[in-house]
């Protein structure tokens, strides 16, 4: 990684993919992008004609290749940045990005401990970057992902996750639905609880690295449950995101 203060770079949109009715993956071309680690994020800055600026942080969704980066952006109603990125940003239009940033909520492909990923809603994005990086690196570190979504249609990367589970040895994915579960799913919609983490996580004595990402309340709850189950607090890494968008 470069060891110099970071400046803003100009990025252009090259592709967009619809993930859910309210979220899209945006592929950006960023000349000179230095590469990044799974879990890192990027700041995106918009400048209005009158000079007003708004910046937001977005997690990088995939390993970077050839100066291209991927973000998955959830549209926040009344947000300042996400509605523009999703509804108005046209291919070729410039925005500014600063990154990669983040030295804590990252997974390195050379690590050997088992990994537990717990995602709440769009908190899946940096965790998906880890799942994808594991695949690219040919890592055999056992991964378990517990993914909480409101309904089946709110699941990001649904097809790819199905493929990953089929093709990537040592990756398990469990879903928790909070409002509406798919037909034939066992159990009622509920929020992630002790039983989910106990059943689909790792026992603490395996000393897994736990990554928890989601809204503040979700992260608080899950991190407390994991520590309560006996996981050492320093092995539970968290990333919360607030309501701004």
């Amino acid at each position, binding site marked *: 990684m470069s060891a110099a203060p970071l400046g803003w770079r100009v990025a252009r949109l090259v592709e967009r993919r619809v993930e859910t009715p309210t979220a899209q993956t945006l592929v950006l071309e960023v000349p000179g992008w230095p590469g990044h680690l799974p879990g890192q994020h990027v700041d995106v800055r918009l400048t209005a004609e009158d000079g007003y600026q708004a910046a937001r942080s977005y997690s990088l969704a995939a390993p970077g290749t050839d100066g291209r980066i991927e973000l998955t952006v959830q549209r926040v109603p009344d947000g300042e940045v996400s509605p523009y990125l999703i509804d108005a940003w046209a291919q070729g239009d410039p925005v500014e990005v600063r990154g990669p*940033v983040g030295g804590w909520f990252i997974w390195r492909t050379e690590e050997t401990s088992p990994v537990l990923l717990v995602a709440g809603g769009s908190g899946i994005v940096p965790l998906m970057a880890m799942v994808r990086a594991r695949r690219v690196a040919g890592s055999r570190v056992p991964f378990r992902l517990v993914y909480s979504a409101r309904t089946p249609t709110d699941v990001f990367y649904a097809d790819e996750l199905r493929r990953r589970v089929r093709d990537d040895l040592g990756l398990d994915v469990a879903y928790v639905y909070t409002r509406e579960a798919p037909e034939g799913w066992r159990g009622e919609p509920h929020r992630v609880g002790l039983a989910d983490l106990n059943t689909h996580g790792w026992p603490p004595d395996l000393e897994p690295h736990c990554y928890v990402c989601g809204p503040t309340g979700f992260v608080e709850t899950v991190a407390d449950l994991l520590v309560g189950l006996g996981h050492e607090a320093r092995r539970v890494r968290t990333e919360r995101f607030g309501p701004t968008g």
Partner: protein
Amino acid sequence: MTQLSYLDGNMLDGPLRELFAVDLSAATGRCDSCGMTGPMACLHVYSHAPGLVARCPACTAVMLRLVRSPDRAWLDLRGATFLQVPMPLDQPHPRPL
């Protein structure tokens, strides 16, 4: 909600990378108020202010404040006794002065 919502220290990395050559979220900081030592990533950051205010997760004392204007930045670290920053072993380092 009665409490202002906060973000975690991870989000300081972007704004602070304008000033520092490394990501500070992986640095260890010590709270001057209660003495707790831990990753800067675990601070609670409040961004509903003219700047960023980062508080100790244990005692809520302010450990770091950062204000950015178009042509300068103010960094107030008086709430942090020290920052310990991991350095790569392959990077040449000067002898003690």
